[in-house]
């Protein structure tokens, strides 16, 4: 049975010959020649222009009460901002740090508790029978309806941090558990059968089929979790926080420091986007086998 030279050894696929740098340069040139970046820029520019015209230029009623882009930009980039928040002031970065630190803690606990629970609920029928109904009853309750109860639960503890982190944790936890469970259920039954055929003990099935098979969904869950966690954190900070971007927004509203509201909102958008991007990249690198699937 002579094994003829299989293509995998020859590795003469076309794309591999061109160095990856040339390829990325080519794709960049490709991207620049297409209309999409310019139209995209036009779209964003027209949005900012409309904002400018309505608020500062034409002073349209109702809109004129909102800060315009020029005012916001000046405040944001001035070394000595009137309301104390700009890229030069440490206070700005402190608020960002507090919000990120809270989401990280919530994310950590949601992953530590959510992923294993989701894996077991997806894998073992009995486990799911006990755990799923409780989750299903609690899940429809909007996370922010928990604010008063969260304050009560952590009334004993001095720091006001606990309830805020708890709320962000709740949001992330539910997303992580459900998506992980979905991930395990999406694994083709044939892989469980193959593993059992090959004589796997339960622990093998868990670490070599359940975990790797569910990985793509776990990361989707984490990504959604961070998004929802970020969403709940802002509200929690607005209602009962001391620092953080959510608190900053509400505080500047109360003190009528309107440009700061816009700065905080845009910062929230950028940081939130960054969070999910990081998880996406980590997920992609961990699951190389998934990228090459479908050959």
């Amino acid at each position, binding site marked *: 049975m002579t094994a003829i030279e299989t293509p995998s050894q020859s590795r003469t696929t076309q794309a591999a010959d061109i160095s990856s740098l040339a390829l990325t340069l080519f794709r960049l040139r490709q991207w620049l020649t297409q209309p999409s970046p310019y*139209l995209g820029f036009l*779209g964003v520019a027209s949005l900012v222009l409309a904002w400018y015209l309505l608020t500062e230029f034409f002073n349209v009623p109702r809109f004129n009460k909102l800060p315009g882009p020029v005012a916001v930009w000046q405040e944001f980039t001035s070394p000595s901002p009137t309301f104390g928040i700009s890229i030069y002031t440490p206070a700005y970065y402190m608020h960002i740090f507090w919000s990120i630190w809270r989401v990280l803690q919530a994310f950590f606990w949601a992953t530590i508790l959510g992923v294993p629970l989701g894996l077991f609920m997806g894998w073992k029928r009995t486990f799911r029978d006990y755990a799923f109904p409780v989750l299903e009853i609690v899940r429809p309750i909007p996370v922010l309806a928990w604010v008063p109860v969260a304050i009560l639960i952590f009334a004993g503890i001095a720091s006001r941090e606990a309830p805020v982190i708890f709320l962000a944790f709740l949001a992330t936890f539910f997303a992580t558990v459900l998506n992980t469970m979905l991930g395990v259920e999406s694994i083709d039954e044939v892989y469980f059968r193959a593993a059992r055929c090959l004589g796997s003990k339960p622990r093998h099935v868990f670490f070599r089929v359940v975990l790797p098979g569910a990985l793509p969904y776990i990361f989707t869950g984490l990504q959604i979790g961070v*998004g929802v966690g970020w969403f709940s954190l802002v509200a929690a900070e607005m209602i009962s926080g001391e620092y953080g971007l959510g608190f900053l927004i509400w505080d500047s509203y109360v003190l009528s420091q309107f440009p700061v509201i816009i700065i905080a909102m845009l910062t929230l958008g950028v940081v*939130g986007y960054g969070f999910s991007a990081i998880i996406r990249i980590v997920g992609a690198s961990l699951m190389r086998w998934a990228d090459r699937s479908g050959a």
Partner: protein
Amino acid sequence: MATAAFAKSSTTLSLRRGLVSVLGLLVFWEIGRRLHFPFLSAVPAPTEVLASLDKIVGNSKFWNDWISSFSRVLSGFALAQLIGIPVGLLMAMSRTLRYLWFPPLEILRPIPPLAWVPTSIIFWPTTELSIIFVIFLGAFFTVVLTVLGGARAIDERLIRAARSFGSKPRDIFWRIVLPATMPSIITGMAVGMGVTWEVVVAAEMIAGKSGLGYFTWASYVGGNYPQIIVGMASIGIAGYLSSGAIRLLGKRATPWQRRI
């Protein structure tokens, strides 16, 4: 007949287990409150909540809160569908619109809807309108992106087959693109509805004068803690009913998706 019996008993088995775990939780909560377990000592126990229930159910103000929350949710949600679905479909059908609108949407989307509350209060004349606007935003981004994703994921061969049969552009839209996107529209609605309830509760807590969110927060501020749990449960039930309605609507709108 063995397998049929087995199937039936397995559902009752899991039902029983579910019941056991829920009851167990309630009992633990009750004991925790009574014996002042850490974390549970300040939280009103199930029995206290039940006691306060008949008082609340009696007065009409409580039911008005239900109505005002629902009316806010429905108006914000309906607006988001009315504008969001066409925008999503337009972006799918025309490439220029997609290049034009996608980046601005992509920048505004990550901003949590509740961050808009102060700006919305400043801008809109009444708090009612400001809350509805924030609810609208919450659902709008979800719907647009889900519908766009669904419309663009239509199998190219179906569109080509339709064109081969001599379909006019209006045939392509009404007989191919719309039905094919229906499942994504339903998903967008279901997820959107979930977001709207999250938003309405917080908006009412922060700026509202009525509604279930306001009721829950007022109960806390007023020191009537058992009512907080009633508020939470009501919001949960209201949210569950609305997404249940969407799912029902979904089943009727996509009969072909039923299992064989």
